[in-house]
């Protein structure tokens, strides 16, 4: 029973990481690449770590696995947010089939503040 669990968890985890790697190559623009890699990798690493926890089935390994998963869930989105924001600032274009861009014209170029609706000072906006 535990063997089956270990096999299922680790194979699924490896599969999701593989899909993230393929997605990194295949996705058409920067934002979609960030989008695909942060999450699929989190789920993949989480599954592989769960497989390790089941395999060792001891208290100290399980607590470490839980701590690692919590820290990944807390930190990965922050990194993705900072990278995505910086990319938008330096003007990396979205895919040309993108449907909408609500961020357009909301950033102030000098103060880096971000408005919540359309502002009037046209020349200072990104």
């Amino acid at each position, binding site marked *: 029973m535990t063997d089956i669990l270990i096999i299922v968890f680790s194979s699924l985890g490896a599969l*999701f990481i593989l*899909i993230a790697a*393929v*997605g990194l190559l*295949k*996705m*058409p*623009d920067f*934002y*979609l690449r*960030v*989008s*695909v890699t*942060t*999450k*699929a990798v*989190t*789920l993949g690493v989480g599954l592989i770590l769960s497989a390790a926890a089941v395999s060792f089935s001891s*208290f100290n390994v*399980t607590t470490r696995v839980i701590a690692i998963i919590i820290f990944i*869930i*807390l930190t*990965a*989105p*922050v990194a*993705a*947010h900072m990278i*995505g*924001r910086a990319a*938008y600032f330096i003007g990396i274009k*979205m*895919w040309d*089939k*993108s*449907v*909408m*861009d*609500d*961020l357009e014209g*909301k950033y102030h170029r000098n103060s880096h*503040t*971000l*408005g*919540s*609706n359309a502002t009037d000072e046209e020349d200072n906006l990104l």
Partner: protein
Amino acid sequence: MRNLFLMNILLALIWAALTGSFGYINIGFGFFVSYGILWVITRGRDDVNYFSKAPQVVSFLLFFIKELVKANIQVAYDVITPKDHMKPGIVAVPLEAKTAMEITLLANFITMTPGTLSLDVSTDRKVLYIHAMYVEDKQAFIDEIKNGFERRLLKILR
């Protein structure tokens, strides 16, 4: 609520120390026993909402795992099939969450569900800008975020 949770953990650890085994089954059992004790001794007090919040936290975590797996499968399907089905876009979602804690947790959970990436919060904390992979209909997307994650999260935090 926070005090009761800490007290619950403390009682579970005391249980483990008294019974002398620190396996997770024993600590989990101690947690349940002390949960019951705390429920009994705080019964009838109006200011205690720990016992209605705890099941909500569990159901939120299950909901989060469900969303995570469902959306991962959707993205995986898109990656391994040669045709691109995406309709990406940046959507401005108006926020009901007010404090830094609420907004941080909401943005983190939104980023963790595949297909959506929270890019930035407006300086006046009114709008969250989300990059989404599948924007079929802007209003439907906003409603999905507001009724799914935001409502559940605010119910737990407030």
